[in-house]
C-alpha cells in the first residue's frame, strides 16, 4: 500500500468518527462555567462581612478613646488658668509657689498651683500671700540651691504640656460639631443600603470623629468616603 492510500485510509476513517465521552463530562463543564456569576456576589458579601467584623474588632481593642478626651478637657481648663496666671506673676511669686509645690507630694503638684491663682479675687490673693511667705521663711537655706533648678524646669515642662494639650483640644473643638451632625443625621435617615448598615455599625462602635470607615450613602451606590486605620488614613472630605 502506497503512502497516499495509507493516509487516505486514516482520513476516511476519522472523517465522521464519533466517540461518546463519559456521561458526567457535561456536568464538569457546567460546573466550571457556573462559579463566575456566583463569584461576584459572594465576594461582595464577604467584603461587607469583613468590614463589619474588622470594625467591631478594632472597637473592642480601643475602648478608652472617649475617657481620654474628657480628661484632656479638664487638664486644658487647669492648664489655661496656669498659663494665664503665671505669665504676669513676678519672679518672686514663682519662686514662692514652686517652693511650695516642691514640698508637696508630686501627685498634687498642680492643685495648689491651679487653685491658688484661679480663684484669686483680690482679697483671697492677699490672704494667700500672707500665708505663703511664712513657708518660704521657714525653709532652711539648704533648699535654696534647688529652687533655680525647679524654677527652670517646671515652667518649661508646663508650657510644653500645655501646648500639647492645646493642640489636641483645638482639633477636637473644631471638628466636633461637624462630626456630631454628620453621624446623627446618618442615624436618623435609617438603613437603606449596605453603606448605611456599615455606617450604623461603625457609629455604634467607633466613637472617634474620624471613623474607621465611612460610606457616602446619598446616592444609591455606597461609596467609600473616609478610612482611618491609624497609620493609613483616607478622606474624600477636604480637611478644613
Amino acid at each position, binding site marked *: *500500500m502506497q503512502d497516499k492510500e495509507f493516509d487516505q485510509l486514516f482520513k476516511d476513517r476519522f472523517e465522521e468518527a464519533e466517540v461518546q*465521552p463519559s456521561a458526567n*463530562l457535561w456536568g464538569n463543564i457546567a460546573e466550571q462555567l457556573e462559579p463566575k456569576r456566583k463569584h461576584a456576589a459572594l465576594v461582595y458579601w464577604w467584603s461587607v462581612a469583613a468590614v463589619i467584623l474588622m470594625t467591631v474588632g478594632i472597637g473592642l481593642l480601643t475602648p478608652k478613646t472617649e475617657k481620654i478626651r474628657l480628661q484632656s478637657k479638664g487638664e486644658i481648663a487647669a492648664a489655661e488658668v496656669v498659663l494665664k496666671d503665671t505669665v504676669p506673676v513676678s519672679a518672686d511669686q514663682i519662686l514662692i509657689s514652686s517652693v511650695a509645690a516642691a514640698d508637696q507630694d508630686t501627685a498634687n503638684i498642680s492643685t495648689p498651683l491651679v487653685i491658688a491663682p484661679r480663684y484669686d479675687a483680690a482679697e483671697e490673693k492677699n490672704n494667700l500671700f500672707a500665708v505663703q511667705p511664712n513657708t518660704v521663711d521657714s525653709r532652711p537655706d539648704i533648699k535654696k540651691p534647688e529652687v533655680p533648678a525647679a524654677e527652670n524646669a517646671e515652667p518649661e515642662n508646663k508650657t510644653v504640656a500645655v501646648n500639647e494639650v492645646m493642640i489636641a483640644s483645638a482639633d477636637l473643638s473644631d471638628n466636633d460639631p461637624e462630626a456630631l451632625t454628620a453621624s446623627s443625621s446618618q442615624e436618623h435617615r435609617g438603613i437603606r443600603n449596605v453603606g448605611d448598615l456599615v455606617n450604623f455599625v461603625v457609629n455604634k462602635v467607633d466613637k472617634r470623629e474620624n471613623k474607621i470607615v465611612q460610606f457616602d450613602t446619598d446616592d444609591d451606590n455606597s461609596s467609600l468616603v473616609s478610612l482611618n486605620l491609624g497609620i493609613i488614613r483616607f478622606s474624600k472630605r477636604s480637611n478644613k
Partner: protein
Amino acid sequence: MKLTQYSIDELLEGCKAGNRKMQEALYKQTAAKMMAVCMRYAKNRMEAEDTLQVGYIKVFQKVKEYRGDGSFEGWIRRIMVNTAIESYRKNLKAMNVVPIEDAYEQPATGFDFSRLGMQDLMKVIQKLADGYRLVFNMYIIEGYSHKEIAETLGISEGASKSQLSRARAILKEEIIRMEGINYATHAG
C-alpha cells in the same frame, strides 16, 4: 442522540447570550465528534476528555468572537485541535523521538489495510510517541502544511517531514504486528 431540537443559528445565538440550556444542547450535538478529534491527539480516553473539557470551556468563552466565516462545527473543531496542541506544548518533553529498529520502509506486502476500522486505527495512533502523533494528525487529518506545523511547534520543516515519515512507518509496522497476533491467536 440525534435529537436536533435547535438549529445551528439558534444554538449560536443562545450560546452567545450565555444561555446554559443552549450551551448544553450544543455540547450534546457536537461532543461525540469532538471527542473523536481529541482521542486522536491523546494517549488515552482520560487525556482526551481533559482536552475536550478545556476545549468546550474555550468554545463558550469565545463564542462571541465567532464571526460566521466557515462552519460553526469547523470552528469548534479548530478550537479542540488548538487545545490539544497547546497541552502538548505545555508538557513538551522534547519531540520524544523513540528510535525503532529499522522498521523504516519495511514492505508490508500483501496486507489489506482497508479492512481496518476506525477503532483499530485509533488504537495504533494512540500508541505513537506524542510528537509523531501530533505531526501525523496535523498533516494527514487536519491538512496543515509542513511549514505551518514547523511554525506552530517551533521545529524545522525538515524535522516535520521526517517525523511524518517515521510516524507512518511505525503505524504500518504496528498494524501488521497487531493483526499478526490476532491472526495467530485465531489460527491457534
